[in-house]
């Protein structure tokens, strides 16, 4: 899931400075779970904006703003309200904001900061566990990813700076490499850790990435 956090309201208002009519778009999926773009948040954003004297042309939660076809359909259906607005305030991830812009050609203001690809540990608690490296080596590291769990992204073991099992960069988090070590040890697979891992091939993650899934296209 894509984890988002709402920007400070003052920052959002600054982006909407001079804009009278605002169309608000939320998202039924990730942003709903993150409480950054579900029904409730969209509604309260409407109230805030109206409180600041803006006219909210509509406040809708789309399923989903990151889907270009869906955005185009919504745009066709609600063209007047959207086009008649000075901006679309998108309460989803950056993908949603981008796609709404692409599908409507409107002035888009992102209400959220997009943070990471996250595991939902329990309600309201999200963890970054995959850094989207494009070359998954989790099978070597006991299912814990050093690219995501070690701030230095080390491939060959701990930096030596962990104190009481906590990372030297952020004492609030466990040292990713000690997690990996413990897991491999318990599984009797420490040999994995003894192997020298080659440098990452960063040519596999050159941005922007794009793939065409033939299986879907042929359907």
């Amino acid at each position: 899931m894509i984890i988002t956090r709402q920007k400070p309201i003052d920052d959002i208002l600054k982006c909407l400075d001079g804009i009278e009519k605002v169309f608000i778009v939320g998202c039924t999926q990730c942003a709903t779970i993150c409480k950054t773009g579900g029904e409730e948040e969209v509604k309260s954003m409407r109230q805030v904006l109206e409180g600041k004297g803006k006219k909210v042309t509509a406040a809708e939660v789309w399923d989903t703003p990151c889907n270009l076809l869906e955005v185009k359909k919504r745009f066709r259906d609600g063209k007047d309200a959207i086009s008649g607005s000075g901006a679309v305030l998108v309460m989803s991830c950056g993908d949603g904001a981008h796609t709404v812009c692409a599908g409507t050609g409107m002035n888009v203001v992102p209400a959220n900061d997009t943070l990471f690809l996250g595991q939902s540990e329990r309600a309201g608690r999200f963890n970054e566990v995959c850094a989207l490296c494009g070359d998954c080596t989790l099978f070597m590291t006991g299912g814990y990813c050093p690219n995501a769990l070690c701030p230095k992204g080390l491939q060959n073991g701990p930096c030596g700076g962990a104190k009481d099992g906590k990372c030297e960069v952020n004492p609030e988090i466990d040292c990713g490499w000690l997690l990996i070590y413990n897991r491999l040890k318990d599984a009797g697979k420490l040999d994995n850790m003894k192997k020298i891992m080659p440098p990452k091939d960063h040519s596999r993650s050159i941005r922007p990435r794009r793939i065409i899934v033939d299986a879907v296209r042929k359907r």
Partner: protein
Amino acid sequence: MTLKEKISSRKFIITSEIGPPKGIDVKSNLEEALMLKDRVDAVNVTDSQSAVMRLGSLAVSRLLKEEGVEPIYQLTCRDRNRIALQSDALSAAALGIENVLVLTGDHPSRGDHPAAKPVFDLDSVQLINTLKGLETGKDMAGKELKGVPSFCIGAVVNPGADPLEPELIKFEKKVKAGASFFQTQGVYDVDAFAAFMDKVKSFDTCVIAGIILIKSPDMARFMNKNVAGIFIPDKLIEEIENAPDRQHKAVEIAARTIKDLKGLAHGVHIMSLGWNKLVPRILDKAGL
């Protein structure tokens, strides 16, 4: 004799360390270096230590060499991708600098430019491998080099790491990758260090024990609390607390530790944290 030759002839190695300034005034660096010149085998030059931006370790390494002091050029993975790391290693070789100490480096968020992009394109094991590759006349892309460098590659190890096993696994990888000497985190507990040496004796590599001068009881307590692998016994902290002259005490403790480490470690690396003028006195007292 070069450091490399001394290591292979199993001489007891003595190294120290200087930190380049923030700026370009190297006067005090050079003064320190001259103070150390005839007393130590080589001097580490730190690479923007603690992720605090400073004058480059390569430039200061070269300046030391011009003063007749053998430098150990510290090269961290923090700020450079594999192109810059290889290029800087070649630059070192072209400037006549053979000793390269490879480190992961601190995360930029801990330094004075916390907004900097952390690089860590290679890790320390991969960087050692890479330097070894350059020595065979090829870069990481397999391209031929015109003029082939030769290095004396060092690395670091933390004997006080807890748990120790993952540290030992990485240590072994560094040995396999081609590190020919190791400098350690500061040692205060010689018995614990002896136990560590026992565990690594089969690797048959040169382990140079770190000595960090304790300037004050507060510093000792701070390090115990915040620095991984450092354990300064209460008894030692008390000793400093009660000392009338702290510099004198720091010298005494360092000299005593060094004496105890002789026969255990293959050398000592003195990190004086700005008190390099005390190093000759420490060595005198330690009988070196």
